């Protein structure tokens, strides 16, 4: 193939490939969150149910287990596409650096394997195992879910802060050290941030389903527990997440100052740097923003005289698209703060009165908290991924040099859009059904209900 033609194809492929990856990842990540956190809530409800002899709790746990099965199936198939896409779309990344950062994916392969096995066992064994054995079978699922998230995010952290190898004079990788690569400077803050996000997303989303039910006047025990258990988990972890957010911001400031400058829309390198909310960035300046004086210097250095690096220190062609990053970052922080407020209201009422706040406004807030948590998480991912641009491996490999030059590749994007729209519709349809008929079987269970709508209305909510 003519070299010039290859370049032309790669340029043509770049944008659709990025969009295809963003769509696939952005979709998969939501389902991964449920894979990580939902087993914890479910087995907790099951355990309390057995302990208190309360059938409302065990039935709630069974419904959750089924929903978990549906979400896990959707996550598993979307994850498969991603592992193909890593190579198909980004051969320049995988071919050159696979030996450095591919290793955590091998471990993730194991983690996912064990998770898939025990999801099968947990659902299939619902009434076949003793309660004790059954609850124990959830344990490997919980551990491998968290471990899998750690490994995948560790690989992403490596893309932000590549370590564990050297490049020779020709740019070839030498002395790859996969263990060192897996534990770079961004690994711990990023994985902690993601794991907490997974629990928050799942907690607020599940709670929001029952908040909607309560707003519609269903105030039975099932709804009370359905709201209380996930919301408690989420509310406890939200303040922790804010702390971890501070940690990660400091690591970004140190390791990827350009990303931090884009997050804040900061052009000039300066001390007493302000914290900017909102605004539009053009002509090397952030306009119409609300500034908190000295805020950024305080946040990063805990000192108003701390110097924060601005975008001016980065060559123009190495800067990320500032508006996307700044907006996404603001959305994440804004929604995170709102969720913190919700958590505080909930904690206060529980501490003083030992009950869920009765105000419909509280329930309305919980009802939208699920969507808010998901949007916040996606915004966080846009911040870190777009903030890394134009690099796919920070400061080493440009995204445009990693994309496959294969002719026609861009067509895949349109197919993926169609498939994900269909998959989303199907998942939502099945989950809604599950919410209304809680005898609906999960994918991993064996007994299908015969078709036709003679099944009596067993309202869950």
């Amino acid at each position, binding site marked *: *193939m003519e070299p010039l033609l290859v370049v032309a194809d790669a340029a043509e492929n770049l944008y659709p490939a990025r969009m295809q990856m963003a769509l696939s990842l952005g979709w998969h990540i939501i389902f991964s969150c449920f894979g990580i956190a939902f087993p914890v809530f479910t087995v907790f409800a099951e355990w309390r149910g057995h302990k208190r002899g309360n059938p409302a709790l065990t039935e709630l746990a069974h419904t959750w287990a089924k929903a978990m099965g549906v979400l896990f199936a*959707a996550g598993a198939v979307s994850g498969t596409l991603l592992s193909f896409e890593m190579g*198909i779309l980004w051969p320049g990344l995988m071919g050159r650096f*696979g*030996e450095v950062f591919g290793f955590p994916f091998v*471990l993730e392969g194991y983690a996912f394997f064990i998770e898939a096995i025990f999801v099968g066992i947990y659902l*299939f064994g619902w009434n076949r195992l003793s309660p004790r054995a059954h609850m124990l079978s959830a344990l490997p699922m919980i551990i491998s879910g968290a471990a899998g998230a750690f490994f995948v995010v560790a690989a992403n952290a490596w893309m932000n802060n590549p370590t564990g190898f050297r490049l020779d004079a020709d740019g070839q990788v030498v002395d790859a050290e996969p263990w060192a690569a897996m534990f770079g400077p961004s690994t711990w803050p990023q994985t902690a941030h993601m794991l907490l996000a997974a629990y928050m997303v799942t907690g607020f989303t599940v709670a929001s389903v029952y908040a909607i039910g309560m707003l519609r006047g269903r105030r039975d025990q099932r709804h009370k527990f359905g709201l209380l258990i996930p919301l408690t988990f989420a509310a406890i972890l939200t303040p922790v997440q804010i702390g971890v957010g501070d940690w990660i911001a400091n690591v970004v400031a140190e390791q990827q100052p350009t990303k931090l400058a884009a997050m804040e829309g900061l052009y000039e390198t300066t001390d007493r740097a302000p914290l900017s909310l909102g605004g539009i960035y053009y002509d090397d300046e952030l306009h119409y923003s609300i500034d908190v004086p000295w805020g950024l210097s305080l946040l990063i250095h805990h000192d108003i005289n701390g110097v924060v690096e601005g975008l001016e220190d980065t060559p123009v062609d190495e800067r990320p698209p500032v508006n996307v990053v700044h907006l996404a970052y603001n959305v994440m922080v804004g929604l995170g703060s709102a969720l913190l407020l919700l958590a505080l209201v909930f904690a206060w009422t529980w501490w003083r009165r030992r009950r869920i706040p009765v105000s419909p406004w509280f329930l309305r807030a919980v009802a939208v908290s699920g969507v808010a948590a998901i949007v916040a998480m996606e915004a966080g991912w846009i911040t870190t991924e777009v903030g890394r641009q134009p690099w796919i491996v920070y400061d080493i490999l440009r995204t445009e040099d990693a994309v496959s030059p294969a002719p026609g590749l861009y067509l895949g994007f349109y197919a993926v859009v169609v498939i994900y729209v269909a998959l989303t519709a199907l998942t939502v349809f099945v989950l809604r059904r599950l919410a209304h008929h809680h005898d609906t079987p999960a994918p991993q269970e064996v007994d*299908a209900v015969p*078709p036709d709508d003679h099944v009596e209305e067993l309202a869950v909510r």
Partner: protein
Amino acid sequence: MTLAEVLLGVMFVGLIAYGLFGGADFGAGIWDLLAGGTRRGARQRDLIEHSIGPVWEANHVWLIFVLVVLWTAFSGAFAAVVTTLYIPLTLAAFGMIGRGAAFAFRKSITTLPMRRFLGAGFALSSLVTPYFLGAVVGGVASGRVPPGIARGDVITSWVNPTSILGGLMAVLVCAYLAAVFLCGDARREGTEDLADEFRIRALGTAGVTGIVGFGGLFVLRSDAPLLWEGLTGRAVPVIGLSVVAGIAAVFFLGTKRYLPARLASSLAVTTILVGWAVAQYPYILVPDLTIEDAATGRATLQAMLIALAGGAVFLVPALVYLYVLFQRSPAESEPRESASPQPPGAVIT
């Protein structure tokens, strides 16, 4: 054996496991497609659903395992294969999504038209996915993937005689395995008449697979001479073993001994895959790139070997537990909470 060969061997074990377990799941979908009308095929579809319900997700992970080992230990070769063959791989991935989602969700849906639609989606994608994967194998085995990123022809690398043969063989082997496995499952569920139906299908597909396999050798002679040379040279003992195992499987099926039939047919399929590997050795990409040249750095290979061995300690018992729990006869694992009894003649698409 070098470190690289050991790792490629481990990857190949994963590939064989995917071929056997994942392949049987695909095959079950193919039989679902051919089970006939909604009412007539209901019992067969029911059996298929029971057989793969709790295990298909786990079976499917073998493929992920193969991919991640390849991209970490043989990064350059991996990039070459997936970029040149991106079209059949993308289509296979779509097939996996379609199959997984349709199978997973159809039982959660009770309206008949919707269930029919999902059932058809499940069955059709079970047919096309192994075809595309077999075509990918054909492209690699016939030397149509040169090293480097997207250096091969993105169309003729998978639309060629060897790829078509590979695709057909993959579909046939999946259908064959599934039929053999379903015989045993049908007996375990106490439906001997269904076992007989699948026994006939297993024997039929065994015959067709054998004929296509041998006919295919002559396709390879002209289209993939290096592979042909290996298959008729170094790999002869392996291919011979495959033939013996295949005949033994037919014998066991004929005498309704389903467990030995399962083992023999698994051996027959395993040896086909091993035969390919032996014939292609020492090349990972025929005829340019050897396993040694494609392997990544020593530290990476060592770390992977440790991880693979360590992971197996967790994985193997878990897998065994899943299959044992699941394969226990239904009499002793009947749900304690009685499931809603199915009305006679229940229609399950």
